[in-house]
């Protein structure tokens, strides 16, 4: 047993005490025989006496002590093992508010458990604060943006149209930054996975985006290649798909169609009629992280970085096929099928 194990140290301590005690006893008994006897025994006789009356009982006693010690140590530490199992299980189902039940722990471990619980509470509070911040920031930023766009609607001419596009781009950026904040808060809070039907997500998203797409003379379509479900975070998966579809709509010329394909297996793909992104470019865009200081000419910008992040969190990957003009979200099946 390693010296860092509590059980190991206890066993070592008990062993040392037993061995030292045995030697002291042995010494005392030998002394008694030598000093206290009328006719001195020969060394041979002394050895026999000691072996019969001292060593044999000692071995039996030490054996019993070893067995009992091991049992006591194991049962003393069992609450710790059980607590770890309980916490693991709770963390898998409950998104937040996981605490160690310190009443079940030995008194010596309770201060430690209480300290961990305080830390967990602080983490929960931090995740909540970040979400609240995202919500506040959204409200604070979006209202002036709305005012700006309504004012611009009243202006005629080309300049106003350009400004409207700028406001739309700005608002998209705000959305994406807030989405990132929310995703971080969710992963900090370990939001649980749920069973997801990609067809359901795709058709909901298409229904929401179709009116806007049609207004700009682009259409949307859905294809299903084999029914499937997988485990994931619905909101995150929707956000990833939404980013891809919005990018695709911007890349597709007027009159074109953006197609969302579900399956085969736990995957969602988006096909556009634009020039197509090479896998190298996708990898480059995905890596850029949270930097808003680059306006990508393809308009993919921050979007793909967010998508890549969502996919990483799902144990999946974002891949590109320039030939088929498809961007694919592959959700890891191994990760996905685990409850």
């Amino acid at each position: 047993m390693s010296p860092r194990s509590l059980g190991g140290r206890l066993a070592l301590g008990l062993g040392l005490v037993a061995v030292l005690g045995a030697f002291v006893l042995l010494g005392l008994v030998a002394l008694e025989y030598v000093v206290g006897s009328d006719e001195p025994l020969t060394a041979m006789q002394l050895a026999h006496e000691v072996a019969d009356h001292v060593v044999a009982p000692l071995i039996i006693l030490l054996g019993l002590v070893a067995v009992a010690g091991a049992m006591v140590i194991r049962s003393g530490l069992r609450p710790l093992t059980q607590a770890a199992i309980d916490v693991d299980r709770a963390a898998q189902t409950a998104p937040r508010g996981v605490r160690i039940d310190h009443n079940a722990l030995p008194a010596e471990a309770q201060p430690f458990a209480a300290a961990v619980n305080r830390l967990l509470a602080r983490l929960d509070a931090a995740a909540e604060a970040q979400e609240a911040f995202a919500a506040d920031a959204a409200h604070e930023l979006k209202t002036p943006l709305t005012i700006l766009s309504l004012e611009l609607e009243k202006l005629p001419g080309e300049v106003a149209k350009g400004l409207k596009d700028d406001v739309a781009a700005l608002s998209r950026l705000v959305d994406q930054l807030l989405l990132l904040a929310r995703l971080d808060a969710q992963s900090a809070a370990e939001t649980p996975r749920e069973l997801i039907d990609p067809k359901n997500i795709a058709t909901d998203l298409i229904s929401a985006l179709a009116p806007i797409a049609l207004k700009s003379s682009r259409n949307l379509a859905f294809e299903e290649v084999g029914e499937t479900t997988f485990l994931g975070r619905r909101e995150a998966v929707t956000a990833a798909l939404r980013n891809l579809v919005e990018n695709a709509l911007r890349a597709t010329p007027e009159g074109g169609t953006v197609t969302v394909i579900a399956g085969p297996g736990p995957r969602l793909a988006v096909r556009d009629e634009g020039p197509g992104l090479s896998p190298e470019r996708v990898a480059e865009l995905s890596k850029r992280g949270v930097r808003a200081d680059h306006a990508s000419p393809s308009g993919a910008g921050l979007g793909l970085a967010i998508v890549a992040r969502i996919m990483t969190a799902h144990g999946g990957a974002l891949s590109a096929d320039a030939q088929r003009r498809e961007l694919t979200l592959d959700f890891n099946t191994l990760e996905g099928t685990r409850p």
Partner: protein
Amino acid sequence: MRILIVEDATRLAALLAEALAKHGFASDRAPTLSAANDALAAAAYDAIVLDLGLPDGDGLEWLKRRRSASLPPVLALTARGTLTERVAGLDAGVDDYLTKPFAADEVAARLRALLRRPGPRAAPILSAGPISLDVAARRATVSGAALDLSRRELDLLELLLRRAGAVVSKDAIETALYSFDSEVTPNAVEAIVSRLRKHLDEAGVQGVLHTIRGVGYLLEDRT
């Protein structure tokens, strides 16, 4: 049509009221929930545009408390518009959601859609652009000229008109047009849609009935 705009950003409320006036909506403004209560006590409104974050309380909480009294349909304005938020809103009695920033046309279109929903407040005449349908008399017209439609085509048109500007799923159409026991062939809906589209084309409204392949259909809400 009289609308109550409950929004604390007064400039936003004023701009929205001004833009809605162009679409034929008269609107009153309430910057707080208590002002909204006063306005609702004083006048009858056809719909409410409700910002969810208000200085004297949460819009959804207010709605839950008010729902016991009969309220006109509610279009919620929100900064976030996440799925969980939308679900919470629908549970609280919000009829539709719009995420900021929005265009005034969009607000007007959603309001028209809310006022078209079936129920006691349903208008007997549904319309979208030049197309209109007298629901009770089962008569459809394009710019006043009657359309000769079959019963199923009329049912489909009503369904699309009620949700004009939004996607109506193919499943919803199948359920609405056919009873459970009747046999529906895979492309029965497609056939009716294409017949209706042909009628509309012939009447001079082209390209308003869109197919969203794999999802459903959308009738444009042109104004």
